[in-house]
């Protein structure tokens, strides 16, 4: 790990350096609706500065909402030609994501590359560098400290920037991060370890994983699930906003002759998610579906991969039309 400093006035030059190097820079952009989204940007001026959290997570960069797997086309020999674009993915920098989002990448990386590595994720992930920004503010939906993270966590990041009076404290975590810094080395000065604590937000700790870990084992049979899911409208907003939700659907678009096969986000809360062609639906009530989502985050992913797949970003709480609250639900079912 390298430690550097860069002054606030030089940060735009660093940013421009990335653009000049021909990288696609994806950064938070404030839209008319007052919401902040990750968008490819052309200049530092477009980047939003005042935001607690983006509406959707940065997973979109490595796991787009619609991803073309390949195009197919009938050839003259009667077979089909496939064409994927794995070799055409540009070098991308995600700028200004939050530590919780970066921690989400840590999970995505383990999930997609285990057992049967996902070629599309890998191709994108390998070309993506995360320049994370520590949080100086938070709101009541944030609960990263409850899931063993914190607003200055370096987990998953390649570079972590922490704003400190007039300068940024730069923690360079990986090779990928180093190469970004090395291209603009003149902007940085070396430094000793500094304490970030003073400059970080203090989100409320809602629970500790220590106490949840054992109690979640029997949570499946909790009677509280019904109350926890009654308000659920069964839309997919929580899953689509989540930085670690990875479920997808594969669909063909086109004719038998030519077209494309795409994968697109899917959500376990939608009633059609598990429905068989026969009409049988293994999880037919919202209670079961909500339970699956929460149990996956806090129990199943721990058992399968050893990671809690909730990073405490609070997006699902912010986007939920009926304000279902994931940490309150978890507390109630593990009572």
């Amino acid at each position, binding site marked *: 790990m390298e430690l550097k400093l860069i002054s606030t006035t030089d940060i735009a030059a660093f940013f421009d350096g990335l653009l000049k190097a021909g990288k*696609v820079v994806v950064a938070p952009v404030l839209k008319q609706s007052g919401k902040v989204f990750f968008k*490819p940007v052309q200049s530092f001026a477009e980047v939003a500065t005042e935001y607690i959290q983006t509406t959707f997570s940065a997973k979109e960069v490595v796991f787009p909402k*619609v*991803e073309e797997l390949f*195009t197919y*086309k009938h050839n003259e020999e009667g077979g089909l030609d496939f064409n994927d*674009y794995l070799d*055409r*993915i540009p070098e991308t920098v995600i700028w200004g994501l939050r530590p919780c989002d970066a921690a989400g990448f840590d999970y995505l990386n383990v999930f997609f590359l285990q057992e049967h590595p996902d070629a599309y994720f890998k191709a994108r992930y390998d070309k993506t560098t995360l320049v994370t920004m520590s949080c100086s503010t938070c709101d009541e939906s944030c609960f990263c400290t409850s899931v063993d993270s914190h607003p200055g966590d370096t987990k998953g990041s390649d570079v972590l920037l922490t704003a400190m009076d007039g300068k940024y404290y730069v923690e360079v975590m990986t090779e990928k991060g180093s190469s970004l810094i090395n291209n603009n080395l003149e902007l940085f000065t070396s430094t000793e370890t500094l304490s970030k604590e003073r400059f970080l937000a203090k989100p409320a700790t809602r629970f500790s994983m220590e106490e949840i870990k054992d109690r979640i084992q029997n949570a499946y049979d909790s009677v509280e699930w019904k109350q926890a899911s009654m308000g659920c409208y069964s839309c997919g907003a929580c899953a689509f906003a989540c930085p670690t939700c990875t479920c997808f659907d594969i669909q063909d678009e086109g004719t038998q002759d030519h077209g*494309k096969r795409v994968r697109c986000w899917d959500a376990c809360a939608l009633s059609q998610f598990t429905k068989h062609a026969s009409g049988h639906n293994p999880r037919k009530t919202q209670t079961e579906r909500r339970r699956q989502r929460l149990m996956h985050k806090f129990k199943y992913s721990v058992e399968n991969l050893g990671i809690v797949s909730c990073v405490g970003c609070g997006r699902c709480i912010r986007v939920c039309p009926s304000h279902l609250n994931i940490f309150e639900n978890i507390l109630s079912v593990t009572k």
Partner: protein
Amino acid sequence: MAETFEPKIVAFVCNWCTYAGADLAGTSRTKYATNVRIIRFPCTGRIDFMLLIKAFQNGADGIIVSGCHPNDCHYTSGNFHARRRWMVFKSLLDFMGFPTDRITFSWVSAAEGKKWADLVNETTESVRALGPFTDYKNLDFTQFNQIDHEGIAEQSR
């Protein structure tokens, strides 16, 4: 591409009046533009608005929707219902900024072979003047799929 642009027109017509009208145009040897592809429906009341959107999505440049004159509907009121629906649909598309001048609504009876031929000719000419319909195709540029989409599109033609 030196070829001149030939618009693709899809016509959604009712079985009882307009289709018969088009038949009449044929049997009377009335010549009209060959750009039109006719799709026959039992009644204009049966034409779902999604069909129009699908037609545009699949490459139509213009659309004709046609059926019996008011009071002439084989099923008494199908065209009255359709009329309300088309009015609403047209204004919705307009509100969304969709070029509604690519959709032509008309009443053509079984006796109006000539009207049908004129309708097709006029529509073809007006759509030809508007040029190929590309607005819809240009919608799909997924922001994070920053790759050579045009190239892929070409290959898959």
